[in-house]
């Protein structure tokens, strides 16, 4: 079992957006505590499960939003991670397998005064719920999706998932899986998600910083959280948590050249990300002109470079993976626009007498009167 340890990942920056994701959510001036956000239900994950660390981080993070607790809603699907809402003293719905983004779309569209979170797993979000996920991302509905990626089906006891590496031996794949895995970040960028980030269960500081940026983003924020399942997929993320993690984690910071690995004297990492034939590749930092090291631009309207960076994640054992905010751009949200259409349609129409308007509606068209 890997012990949760803080990496020394540099903090991603929360880039200011014109309007916050919580712009219309009523605030609470009084200081809140993690305890207030903790429900009376006993947490029932396996000992050592990465979900505990995320729950603790979220319970500590929510009070810092300064929102009214009754205006926060957590929706989840089915899976170990999807039990999450029961442990938070907010409004919540533990729904059905894969459908949380659809339910959250209704919630976020119906009410601008709610802060909406979705909790989902790699199976929940990418297998059964893949369709809802990509459509939520393309519509850009104002919600924050926490995708707990343990690269396994936990709740059903250990079948391979759409993020398991090819060749994985599980109960359902005794000869090794022949499925090619999804890279959730690539998938989200392909769906033109406006906020895409990746973080790690055991790195409370980085996780919290990403959550802050995600909640502040107006639109759909997808946060992939690498989450260890000590029971069915232990050590899946050891490469990025162990002693050699500096060689595996590629930290992304907006506006900074992307380097990682053992530090050089000038403070840069010994490996650098450079452009290559339309994509990107890794090169020894000292071999490239400093001007050629790719500077991370999370606000690039074109997702191509972010996508290229996401491809640096190796699909098997995670020897190398970018962590941080890949993309954070502004685009009108579905729910804001849907509400604006309602407002436009109502423009000038008095709300005072819906009965009279109903009478006019049903009494319209070609009518005749019988006396």
């Amino acid at each position, binding site marked *: 079992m890997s012990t949760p340890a803080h990496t020394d990942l540099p903090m991603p920056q929360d880039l200011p957006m014109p309007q916050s994701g919580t712009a219309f959510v*009523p605030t609470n001036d009084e200081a809140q505590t993690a305890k207030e956000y903790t*429900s009376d*239900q006993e947490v029932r994950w396996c000992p050592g499960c990465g979900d505990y660390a995320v729950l603790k981080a979220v319970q500590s993070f929510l009070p810092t939003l300064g929102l*009214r*607790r*009754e*205006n*926060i*809603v957590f*929706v989840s699907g*089915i899976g170990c991670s999807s039990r999450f*809402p*029961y442990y*938070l*003293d*907010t*409004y*919540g*719905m*533990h*729904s*059905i397998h894969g*459908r949380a983004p*659809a*339910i*959250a*779309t*209704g*919630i976020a*569209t*119906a*009410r601008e*005064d*709610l802060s909406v979170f979705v909790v989902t797993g790699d199976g929940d979000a990418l297998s059964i719920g893949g*369709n*809802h996920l990509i*459509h939520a991302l393309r519509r850009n509905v104002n919600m924050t999706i926490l995708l707990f990626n343990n690269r396994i089906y936990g709740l059903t006891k250990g079948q391979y998932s759409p993020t398991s590496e090819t060749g994985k031996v599980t109960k359902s794949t005794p000869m090794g899986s022949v499925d090619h895995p999804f890279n959730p970040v690539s998938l989200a960028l392909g769906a033109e998600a406006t906020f895409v980030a990746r973080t790690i269960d055991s790195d409370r500081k980085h996780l919290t910083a990403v959550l802050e940026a995600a909640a502040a983003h107006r639109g759909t924020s997808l946060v992939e959280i690498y989450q260890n399942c000590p029971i069915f997929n232990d050590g899946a993320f050891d490469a990025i948590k162990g002693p050699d993690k500096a060689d595996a984690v590629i930290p992304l910071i907006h506006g900074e050249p992307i380097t990682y690995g053992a530090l050089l004297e000038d403070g840069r990492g010994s490996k650098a990300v450079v452009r290559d034939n339309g994509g990107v590749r890794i090169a020894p930092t000292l071999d490239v002109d400093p001007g050629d090291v790719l500077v991370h631009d999370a606000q690039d309207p074109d997702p191509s470079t972010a996508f290229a960076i996401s491809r640096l994640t190796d699909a098997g054992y995670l020897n190398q993976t970018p962590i941080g905010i890949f993309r954070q751009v502004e685009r009108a949200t579905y729910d804001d626009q*849907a509400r604006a*259409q*309602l407002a*436009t*349609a*109502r423009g000038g129409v008095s709300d005072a007498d*819906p*009965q*009279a*308007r*109903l*009478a006019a*509606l*049903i*009494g*319209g*068209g*070609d*009518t*005749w*009167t*019988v*006396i």
Partner: protein
Amino acid sequence: MTKQIKQLDRVIIRFAGDSGDGMQLTGDRFTSQSAAFGNDLATFPNFPAEIRAPQGTLPGVSSFQVHFADHDILTPGDRPDVLVAMNPAALRANVGDLPRGAQIIVDTHDFTKRNLAKAGYTVSPLEDDSLAEFAVHRVDLTGMTVEAVQEFGLSRKDASRAKNMFALGLLSWMYGRPTETTEAFLSKRFAKVPAIRDANITAFRTGWNFGETTEAFAVQYEIKPAPMAPGTYRNITGNLALAYGLVAGGVTSGLPLFLGTYPITPASDILHELSKHKAFGVTTFQAEDEISGIGAAIGASFVGNLGITSTSGPGIALKSESIGLAVMTELPLVVVNVQRGGPSTGLPTKTEQSDLLQALFGRNGEAPVPVIAPSSPGDCFDAALEAVRIAVTYRTPVMLLSDGYLANGSEPWRIPEVADLPAIDPAFATTPNHEVEGGEPDFWPYLRDAETLARPWAVPGTPGLEHRIGGLEKGDGHGNISYDPANHEFMVSTRAAKIAAIADSLPPLEVDDPTAADGDGAKVLVIGWGSTYGPIGAGVRRVRRVGGKVAQVHLRHINPLPKELGEILSRYDKILVPEMNSGQLRMLLRAEFLVDAIGYNQVNGMPIKAADLAEAIGDLVASTERSHP
């Protein structure tokens, strides 16, 4: 020339042509004119699933039947008195439905060798004696139309498109229909293209004048207006009435509506209509699939909107897991199923009632859902309002079963007074309903109302009532996850009892048995549900007209069934259940009441014919009177 005028009490006309010939529009216009004139009427559009099947072929034939009368009628009629056939395929596809002596008006222009061959005719039916038993009017509708609209400089193709308006004009003359509504309609519809507007209006007038002047049509018919209850009327289709009923439910409950849906025939018009009513606070969400549509609606209900989802049978199949979630979370939700022919993709544009058992039982687990059905196009309004009432009052998904026949068919509808519509109280929870040990106030989401057994509806944004719901079994009262066996058993029976309790709120079930009061009631009861109301009513009338004694009951509520139903059924020797399925209500009645219900079943995608049903009822009445004198 002076024309003979003949009085008729009712007429059935069928307009038939190629899918591109505008027959639906023609039928619609004739219907509007008849409505404006004051006849009672009923319509039946019938069209292929393909938008434009190959031109001139049998699969491409589209038709619109309208039945209008000087008295109250219940169906669009079985057999047309008049068939307008725009091409050989339209003639061939419909001639089999005509009674001896019917009139046929054909557009001779389209009876070319090629078109005849496409319709499968080797010899033109206009030249042999195959139509000898009908009165055939051979009219060059296309030719005369093209000539009449020459001055507007349209291409020959565009000019000939107006032939449907020529036909409408001719029929309007034959039956003395008022023409103002159609001229106003055409002016508006084609306002942006004056040449087309003028061509259509001219074709319409020329058709009328042709009827008046030609010797080919010697008789004009008169069908007096039908006496109707005082009020303001409009002609309305089922889908429109259903959408209006939902909007009305939003107004009477004060709840914003949220429709989450995915397009599917024949339900899409409900989405189209509701998307126009944003000013009423109606949000419409065209989702990526049916599951997302209902999911979003459930989410909206969770936060205090009234969630609605609309679809047809295949969509219900996809939604069933989500309906179960709404049953478990006990949230208000209206699920509209505009049924069509099944299974699978089935017959998208045809009608059927074959989703009843799916509605009642098509979910995993013990998942009771109220099921209600409208009986006519106009009744879709009331049924939708009733669905909203039950969903909101009892915090439950409600299945509203319309069908293709109701959805697209139309009838005159007396516009209700908005002030008379009953208010619906969402009764949101705003305060804690429970105390934890030590006296701290708390909120229990599954602490029920003693009478309705409904749980409190506390929406996000309400301080102090934060709670979690979900699909896992709930502990009674507190609503936390519970795997306790006794609790599960209790919750299963409580959910069932809540739905059963809806029966307490229903008006008494009406039995139509005219001679019962004299102690000489019928021995045969005909019972139906949904859109068979018209054909059953018409069939029953026919039997009574020739002296047969027969009782009729029609169900709006199929779950829960009205409380009196068992006793009513026990009064009759024979029970006949006509349905457009293989016997689904019959199976339910047998299972619930141990009665020997007999089926009259038709599953051909078409409404039941009143005449055929009357014969079956008549036979049953005769044999029952013989054996149980």
